[in-house]
């Protein structure tokens, strides 16, 4: 032990361990920075999405919520507020209007902003809290409907309230997509005076809760076991499918970036331990000669490795911590104003990953190192262990696989990345071997520096192959990240283009369709796409009546109890993807349903089940012939259940449409409602700008994480070239001794590096394209676009990058006098 420590100290002082140390530090720093940062960004994004709930979590009930829930939230150190909402007539003078009345307590909203203005369409300012007792706030639609002015008195039931402000933005207004009436907001204490709440009134009660993630999940656990009938808990991911979809993609991508950093780490460590072992062959032979046993040598280096791994991991983790702090500082105000404090978990993770990688890649060569033939002291050509090739990386590969699965946090994603990596290694062995063979046959036909450059590549085929695959893995990871990133951003942007629909119109009667068409034409707006909507309640699956009590899950119970919005369609839409079964053909007359995958899972509906809906008193039955996946984040009209035209066409239907209303043309809505008084127009512009803001921030976060991974990748490539520096130094020294000019040497090296880089580039581009295709199809659910540039960038970038890194790492090769190199290598 003491000797191991002394040797470690001596070797590190002599700079023997520097490359290994740097590789590990870079690796661990990359892993932990991404880990820390994604941890914080994820927390921040979730908390920003929570603004759309006005809380981190809400408890929703159809009756007053027992005070114990609020008391317990306080006991957990959480903040809370409560609201209730119900429809009622608002009267002003002789005019009246049905409104959705919302009473809010002090503290509302807990998350997000409540904005108001002091006059209709006046300047907007943030509100500190809801309306004071005795006052009311109305939204613009209510103001217009009743012709209200600030300061006027309105009647709500038996109460008289003074209108104090216009609501410009209400964070949780979007919570229910089809809330149809305009809003009147009052203080919760004024509700009693209205006498509007009677037994049987349709009132929604909400308890808003916010605070630390740990306390929240503890509270949720506590509350879930105490929920009574009609009570349920929602977090952001339960409530907002379109936000959830965006967040999930972001998390997957960030997870992918972290994976890539882990792979880069593994490549760096593998290359560094290879060099370490090669450099220590002589030492081992000498130690054996001096009487050290195999076990002693193994112990000696094992202790060195563990201490080295611990030290490097600690330094790497600290750099990672500092790095993400700097990144967070730089991102301040871009993602959110303050990122939440990171947990310390990534530190431990970095330490574990560093040590694990070092041992997994270091141990197998170490086992070989101890059995270096002692005769090597007499005959230097002896004793480069044969298995130093790819086979000795088996344990390392298995460990990387484990780390990958762990970092992916999801078996499917991990398996895909793993399959991609194994594909590159196998393909690399085949393709690389083939290419090297071609190059070896080429060298007979070229002269001068080309001969030496290509000879260098072809001479040590196994070593070249290992290097090519190492380079290719790193390069592939980077290319893949670029490709997927571009696709991801493009897909997000196209899913929410600036002219995405921002108004929904519902309640359109079939006989109004031609006049609506004319209205849009007259307003020079594109004619809207109209979808039929049939209200129906699911009453039986496979002829067996269903009952809410049959479902343990709260969401399933609600779905069974309420009416569905059904639709019919002849063709499947582009933002819907069939995941099982098939869509009906145009002329098919059979009664069929297509069900959204998520709801099918919740309700236990399988392909070929027969669903019975009760629609306006009659029963309609059809077979489920397809399951669909729906992109909820397109903000377009979508339906959970769609029937074949033959099945639903004859049922009483209304129509729904969404369209884009350019800013500044809001007055048009008044004309629309005047002409079609039964229409209800829903404004989703505010929600959309929230969703878009989240997407933009996610895109920025993704870009930054990507840049960091790119940087880590370049450092690792540099380290990889450094790993072969000794061999190159020696070769160059021999060649210079034999009379090669500096320029010839430089050219030969240049050719060697460029060839290695280009070969690695071909492999990496192939691997990245295939992986991107699979990832897009199977994990991220985005359309795959073939990108020929990946080949250009892969080959040119690979050649240029490795040449640059190579020439930098070996520039001393050209400067060092050959004698000193030869003496050093021989000594």
């Amino acid at each position: 032990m003491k000797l191991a420590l002394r040797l470690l100290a001596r070797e590190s002082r002599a700079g023997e361990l520097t490359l290994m140390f740097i590789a590990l530090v870079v690796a661990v720093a990359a892993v932990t920075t991404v880990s820390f940062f994604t941890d914080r960004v994820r927390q921040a994004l979730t908390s920003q999405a929570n603004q759309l709930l006005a809380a981190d979590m809400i408890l929703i009930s159809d009756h007053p919520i027992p005070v114990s829930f609020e008391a317990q939230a306080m006991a957990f150190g959480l903040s809370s507020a409560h609201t209730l909402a119900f429809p009622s007539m608002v009267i002003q003078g002789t005019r009246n209007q049905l409104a959705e009345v919302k009473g809010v307590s002090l503290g509302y909203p807990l998350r997000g902003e409540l904005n108001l203005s002091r006059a209709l369409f006046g300047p907007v300012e943030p509100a500190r809290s809801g309306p004071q007792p005795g006052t009311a706030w109305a939204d613009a639609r209510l103001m217009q409907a009743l012709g209200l002015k600030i300061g006027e008195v309105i009647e709500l039931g038996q109460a008289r309230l003074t209108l104090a402000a216009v609501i410009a933005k209400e964070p949780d207004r979007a919570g229910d997509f089809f809330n149809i009436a305009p809003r009147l907001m009052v203080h919760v204490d004024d509700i009693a005076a209205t006498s509007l709440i009677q037994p049987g009134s349709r009132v929604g009660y909400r308890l808003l809760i916010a605070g630390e993630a740990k306390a929240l999940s503890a509270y949720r656990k506590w509350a879930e076991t105490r929920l009574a009938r009609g009570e349920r808990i929602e977090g952001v991911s339960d409530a907002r499918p379109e936000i959830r979809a965006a967040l999930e993609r972001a998390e997957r991508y960030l997870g992918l970036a972290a994976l890539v950093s882990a792979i880069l780490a593994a490549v760096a460590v593998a290359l560094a331990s290879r060099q370490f072992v090669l450099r220590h062959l002589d030492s081992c032979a000498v130690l054996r000669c001096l009487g050290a046993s195999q076990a002693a040598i193994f112990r000696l280096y094992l202790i060195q490795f563990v201490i080295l791994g611990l030290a490097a991991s600690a330094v790497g983790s600290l750099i990672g911590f500092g790095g993400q702090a700097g990144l967070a500082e730089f991102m301040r105000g871009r993602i959110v104003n303050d990122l939440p404090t990171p947990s310390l978990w990534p530190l431990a993770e970095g330490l574990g990953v560093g040590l694990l990688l070092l041992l997994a890649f270091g141990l197998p060569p170490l086992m070989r190192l101890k059995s270096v033939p002692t005769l090597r002291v007499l005959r230097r050509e002896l004793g480069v262990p044969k298995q130093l090739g790819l086979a000795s990386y088996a344990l390392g590969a298995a460990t990387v696989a484990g780390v990958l699965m762990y970092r992916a946090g999801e078996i499917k994603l991990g398996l895909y990345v793993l399959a991609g990596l194994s594909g590159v290694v196998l393909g690399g062995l085949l393709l690389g071997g083939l290419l090297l063979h071609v190059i070896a046959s080429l060298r007979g036909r070229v002269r001068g520096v080309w001969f030496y450059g290509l000879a260098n590549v072809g001479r040590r085929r196994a070593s070249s192959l290992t290097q090519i695959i190492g380079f290719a893995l790193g390069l592939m990871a980077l290319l893949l990240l670029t490709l997927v990133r571009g696709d991801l951003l493009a897909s997000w942007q196209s899913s929410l283009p600036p002219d995405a629909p921002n108004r929904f119109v519902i309640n359109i009667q079939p006989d109004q369709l031609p006049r609506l068409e004319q209205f849009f034409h007259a307003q020079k707006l594109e004619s809207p796409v109209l979808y039929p909507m049939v209200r129906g309640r699911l009453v039986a699956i496979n002829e067996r009546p269903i009952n809410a009590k049959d479902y343990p899950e709260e969401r399933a119970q609600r779905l069974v109890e309420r009416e569905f919005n059904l639709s019919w369609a002849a063709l499947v839409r582009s933002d819907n993807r069939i995941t099982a079964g098939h869509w009906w053909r145009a002329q098919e007359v059979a009664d069929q349903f297509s069900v959204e995958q998520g709801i099918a899972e919740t309700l236990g509906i399988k392909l070929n089940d027969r669903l019975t809906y009760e629609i306006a008193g009659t029963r309609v039955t059809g077979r489920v012939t397809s399951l669909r996946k729906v992109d909820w984040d397109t903000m377009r009209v979508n339906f959970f259940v769609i029937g074949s035209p033959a099945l639903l066409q004859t049922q009483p239907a209304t129509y729904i449409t969404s369209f884009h209303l350019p800013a500044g043309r809001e007055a048009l809505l008044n004309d629309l409602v005047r002409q079609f008084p039964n229409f209800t127009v829903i404004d989703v512009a505010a929600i959309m700008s929230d969703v878009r803001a989240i997407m933009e921030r996610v895109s920025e976060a993704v870009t930054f994480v990507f840049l960091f991974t790119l940087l880590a990748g370049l450092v690792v490539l540099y380290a990889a070239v450094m790993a072969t520096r000794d061999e190159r130094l020696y070769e160059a020294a021999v060649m210079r001794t034999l009379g090669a000019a500096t320029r010839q040497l430089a050219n030969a090296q240049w050719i060697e590096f460029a060839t290695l880089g280009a070969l690695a580039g071909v492999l990496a581009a192939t691997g990245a394209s295939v992986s991107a295709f699979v990832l897009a199809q199977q994990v991220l659910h985005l359309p795959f676009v073939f990108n020929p540039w990946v080949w250009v960038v892969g080959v040119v970038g690979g050649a240029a990058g490795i040449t640059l890194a190579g020439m930098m790492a070996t520039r001393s090769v050209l400067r060092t006098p050959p004698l000193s190199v030869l003496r050093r290598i021989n000594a």
Partner: protein
Amino acid sequence: MSAPFIIQAEQLTKTVALEAGPLTILHDISFQIKSGESVAIVGASGSGKSTLLGLLAGLDEPSSGSVRVKGEALFVLDEDGRAALRGRCMGFVFQSFQLLPMLTALENVMLPLELAGSNDARSRAQRILDRVGLGSRMQHYPKQLSGGEQQRVAIARAFVTEPALLLADEPTGNLDSATGANVIELLFALNRERGATLLLVTHDTALASRCGRSLRLDAGRLVAGA
């Protein structure tokens, strides 16, 4: 009985398998060396000198035959057993010095003592480095030393454990003749002072003539000196 013999080689044969068929490097070699003798193994390049030295030191195993060191059969022991025996009673000097590049001169000399668990490694190493005239270069790394200096460090490392048997493989092969002569003086002086047995491989006839006797190898056969 055979106590006065420090090395007994009996019918040593070494055959290696090559693609073109088996190649016999050493043919049936037998000889004995007494304690305190100085013996040179001489012969042309490729005659099998270094292979023989490797077998005597237990660095390699013969195809057949046996070697006894201080009466102990070498090839009955496993590699670790042979390593321990080497640590106990053999010292080595190589043509290519074989100093560890990451250790200073002093640390290189301390290494065998430390491997044996010695407590006074530093002072003993310092004493012998002073003795070989490198007292002022102790903190230098091998690459900062000249070839002659490196070989003197190697000699110090070989003698620091006070081995009964010193094996040297072309100790002057990488040195110019003046430096080589100095190194040889040192080697013999130390050998005399410590009463060790010296066995060296060389094709330098002047060096061989300073030894008590020579074993001459020709194409893997012992032709004189046994």
